């Protein structure tokens, strides 16, 4: 599904990704762990097409299609979704308006008809209740004045609404209380399917108890320096990154 080969990227003049390779087959969830500043968020921005992140080598494809040649919104229309480490506040735009505008833009790009207002509201009510989000919150300006945990929950709500094919979750667990973590994990698990893939960036093994990964990778110094099964996350939790940072 997602194939990243020898990816190199700079921010400003600083090289951050230095030959990163990764393969997430359809149907699988891969976790990425790694020390602060290793380049995890950078990888998520490079894959989603943020300006200012220049690819200087390597490739990234989704189902064989070159992602790097597409604009950010075109990647989104192909089904790439990023749950942001730091979700943005959008003053003056109610959450529902924002999501409906996004959904219809994606549909238009795919040559599909717009969703009708009643269909959209029905879907929104259903997903909000699954994620235990107060529906009135969706009428407020997106993320403005929301708590850290509420913002993360709103990311997963957007993900559930847009139903993407490939999901990147960048520290979605940070800021969530214990109950919210379970609710969010349920929401994420509901999107697992044989034709979808997921990259879960986290610092804590705890999230991986709820969202069980098929593979765990260690990202250090802009590269994947180790990969293994779910047991690798337990080992990292015990022993930290020291030996991998040396390897990087």
């Amino acid at each position, binding site marked *: 599904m997602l194939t990243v080969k020898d990816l190199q990227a700079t921010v400003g003049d600083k090289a951050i990704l230095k030959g990163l390779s990764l393969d997430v087959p359809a149907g699988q969830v891969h976790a990425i762990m790694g020390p602060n500043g290793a380049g995890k968020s950078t990888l998520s921005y490079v894959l989603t097409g943020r300006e200012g992140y220049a690819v200087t080598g390597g490739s990234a494809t989704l189902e064989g299609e070159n992602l790097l040649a597409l604009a950010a919104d075109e990647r989104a229309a192909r089904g790439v979704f990023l749950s942001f480490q730091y979700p943005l506040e959008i003053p003056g735009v109610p959450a529902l308006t924002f999501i409906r505008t996004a959904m219809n*833009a994606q549909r238009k790009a795919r040559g599909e008809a717009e969703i009708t207002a009643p269909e959209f509201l029905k879907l929104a009510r259903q997903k909000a209740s699954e994620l235990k989000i107060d529906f009135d919150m969706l009428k407020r300006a997106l993320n403005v004045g929301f708590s850290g945990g509420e913002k993360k929950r709103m990311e997963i709500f957007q993900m559930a609404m847009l139903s993407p094919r490939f999901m990147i979750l960048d520290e979605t667990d940070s800021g969530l209380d214990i109950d919210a973590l379970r609710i969010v994990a349920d929401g994420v698990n509901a999107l697992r399917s044989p034709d979808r893939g997921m990259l879960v960036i986290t610092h804590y093994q705890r999230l991986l108890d709820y969202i069980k990964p098929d593979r765990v990778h260690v990202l250090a110094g802009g590269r994947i320096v180790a990969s293994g099964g779910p047991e690798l996350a337990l080992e990292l939790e015990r022993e930290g990154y020291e030996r991998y940072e040396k390897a990087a």
Partner: protein
Amino acid sequence: MSVAAAINTRDASALPGKRDEDWRWTDLRGLIRAIPDPSEPFAGDVGRGPFDGLAEDRRVLVNGGETRIDVAAGQKAVVALRVLARGAGSHATMVAVTLGPNARVRLLESYESDGGSVSQTTLSITLADGAVLERVVLAQDHEHAVSVSQAEVRLAPRADYAQTVAASGARRQRLETRVTHPGGHAVLRLDGVYLLAGKRHSDQTTVVTHQNIDGTTAQLTKGVVRDQARGVFQGRIVVAEGADRTDARMGHHALILSDRAEVDAKPELEIYADDVSCAHGNTVGALDEDALFYARQRGMPAGVATAMLTEAFIGEVIDRISFEGARDVVRAWAAERLGG
């Protein structure tokens, strides 16, 4: 010298220009070599105005003329006032608006030109004790027009005056409001929106003079400029000696969407009283790149994302229009200009 006098005497040298402090960013004298011939009387069809559906009292002034709007004590009225320029001549227009005590009026004003005219409108607006006026101005001038509107507003104690000027610019466009504020629990709201594209220019200038204690002024102007357009905001609030307990806030915020667009802003507070609460804020900048990326990551193309974010930015001002019908007209006007 006044613009009206220059037009009436057809003396271009009498136009204000960059040497006049108030006009330095709207230099009519440097622009206009000769005042065009007087506009011909116009008898043709003028179509519908933007606010026609909302008002029972409709006034249309084409190529000059005068009108008086008098609303007696305690009476209510909704008035649509269309100030039209047809052709490329020059003319001046006079409007007098008088509200008796506790009268309640909605004045829905539009400027509509269709060519390279040079026109000026003088409005004299007087509110008696307790009168309430909401003035909504939609300035939809032609790209070749030079259009100046100058309102002189006098408030009595306990009056409530609210204004929103929505402007899309012209070759030169100036919308000026001067308010004499008596304090005495009179309430003033002076808002503006400018959405400029191409080579259009729009200038919103306001001067508020608080003359006595217990006055309130709230002012919010927002603009979006693109291409090679130029927005001008000059806001001055003067709090005279003795006008204590004045509460005045002024905000001006503009988004510049292209390298060649320009915004010139001069917010000023001149305070001669002691016990006042006054603040002003002024920001001019680009659209937030992070917010733009967030919207694009969710699937919105750049144009759709920009339209959504700029409409939300401007929406804060439009939401302050209390007359729903007029608010909808202005919102549709903005959506049409910002649409992706």
